[in-house]
């Protein structure tokens, strides 16, 4: 089916949003709750499923929606249609610090596998499915779980991840070892596997965990420098009362004063 060709502009450095320009009649789909602003003339419509109209019938729609639940997304997608007779803008913001990657699915051969929850928005016609990891070890220890998101179509899609994004093209057979959790997206031609770190000493004290994720070419991969879960762990560890110490840095007594805070 014909995808809507959309123009876009990404704003911001580390807390980005993407502004999409829609021609009259064009539409974009987004995760529910991702919209930042939209100009007059753009109409928002909430649809059950992913709005790609690839699933026909009620059963197909229910299946699609069920799959979306598995990937941790909302059952509904929001479609933004430009009903004015001039070009209008709509913007979608990333929910946490990081970068937005624009991906042209047509260039990538039509399919991209990406991290759960990382989809931000796309041209209408892009379908959101699940990519199920059949390899048990990878599902358990690969850092991305058994279920990842699969974007299919040939239009633009925008994916979001934490920290700095790194795009890397792997030559055939080229191997990259990656800390689990840092994978954002990969082309389906890339072999995704896990590898034991090798020595029991490094496994226990190396701080990298028991397994690396390995990516073997050919194909493109995108990595994130700061997975949200890692950021969240550090924040929780620093919150007084939950697990961290109250860092009252202005105290004259400093550490001495805090001696009496805990029983």
């Amino acid at each position, binding site marked *: 089916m014909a995808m809507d060709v959309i123009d876009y502009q990404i704003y911001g450095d580390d807390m980005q949003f993407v502004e999409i320009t829609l021609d009259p009649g064009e539409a974009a789909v987004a995760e529910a709750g991702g919209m930042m602003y939209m100009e007059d003339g753009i109409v928002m419509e909430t649809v059950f499923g992913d709005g790609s109209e690839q699933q026909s019938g009620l059963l197909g729609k229910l299946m699609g929606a069920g799959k979306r639940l598995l990937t941790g997304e909302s059952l509904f997608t929001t479609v933004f249609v430009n009903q004015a007779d001039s070009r209008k803008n709509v913007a979608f913001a990333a929910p946490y610090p990081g970068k937005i990657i624009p991906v042209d699915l047509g*260039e*990538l*051969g039509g399919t991209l*596998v990406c991290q759960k929850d990382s989809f931000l928005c796309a041209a209408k016609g892009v379908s959101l499915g699940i*990519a*199920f*990891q*059949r*390899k*048990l070890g990878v599902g358990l220890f690969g850092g991305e779980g058994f279920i*990842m998101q699969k974007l299919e179509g040939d239009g633009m899609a925008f994916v979001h991840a934490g920290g700095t994004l790194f795009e890397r*093209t792997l*030559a*055939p*057979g*080229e191997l990259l070892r990656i800390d689990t959790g840092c994978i954002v997206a*990969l*082309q*389906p*031609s*890339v*072999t*995704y*596997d896990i590898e034991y770190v090798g020595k029991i000493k490094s496994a226990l004290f190396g701080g990298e965990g028991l397994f690396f994720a390995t990516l*073997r*070419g*050919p*194909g*493109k991969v995108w990595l994130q420098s700061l997975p949200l879960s890692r950021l969240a762990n550090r924040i929780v560890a620093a919150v007084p009362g939950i697990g961290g110490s109250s860092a009252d840095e202005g105290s004259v007594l400093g550490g001495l004063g805090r001696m009496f805070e805990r029983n």
Partner: protein
Amino acid sequence: MGGFAATCFGPGVAPEGQRVRARFDGDMLILELGQGREARVFAADVRLSAGGFDGRQMLLSWSSGAGDWSVLPADPAALERLAGSAPATFRAEVERWRCSARTARRGLRRTWLVLGVLLASPLLLALLFFWQSERFAGWVTDGIPVAMERQLGELAFAQFRAGGRLLEEGTAVAAVREIGQRLTAGSVYDYRWHVLADPAVNAFAVPGGHVVVHAGLLLEADSAEEVAGVLAHEVQHVERRHSLRGMVHALGWQALLGLALGDLSGSVWGGMAYELGRLRFGREQESAADREGLKLLRKAQIDPRGMLSFFEKLAAREEAGIALLSTHPLSTERLATLQQALREQGSWVSRPLPYDWTAIKSELAVTLEQRWR
């Protein structure tokens, strides 16, 4: 035709891969890169392996002077069909791929199966236990010696006795004791008979031989024979180890549910499971106790009409809207079964019980009156 669609990665090709058509020509594999460009490789140099996101994608790879190449057929079946036109070495590669793909699929299926069974095993165990719980409880119960049963009963009864509601003396207590002893002569159990100061029409037996009759039941009865009928029924619960079985049941459920649901306190679940088990097996046990109780009456030469008339009374109460435990069969049903059993056994010579039940009842009523005032 004569080729298969594939995505090609390699030197001088777009890094995201390029859609190409590939075909075999003699001992060469030829990729049509478009715009008249072609890449050629000896099919014998091509290796087949599995790769891709979930390890199910077929990868053809080889090295050339310029670098490494990978080709991903869009449809592995098309390549397998074409393999016939390829050189023998490549055909062998395809055969190897087919085998290894099959093995991998089978291994994967087995792993998932094992995992599924492991995850579902507590549930399966619980189902099995529910289905066969009576049998399991029977096995365990059979393994408990009478001496241990008595100890268990004493333990359970000690708590009950501490409630202080048992009547210790009086003609009623003596009568119950005497009738009971006549019924249980020669039993391996050491029976103890008690009367509970409680207005409910009820009686129960504790494992090991403590039988408790509520005073309300004694007041409701019109003759000693009627009481004897009830006692015979309760004695059969002890003889047939029904209450012990119930305890084993409840404990087993508690342990199992604790295991399955991770709630080690498990008291709520245990209670629930016990009730469930009773609902399912209670009726059976009650009918058995009725039937066997009748035999006991025969052995002790006690008139069975007392048992029948007491159940008639219970049936009338039921109709009057006083609810009995649902674990007991409906009294009318019981009555019919009992009459049937009696007909089958035939009548027997009975010695009347030497008690003036009206006098015993009035004395009991006075005792209770004093107690409750």
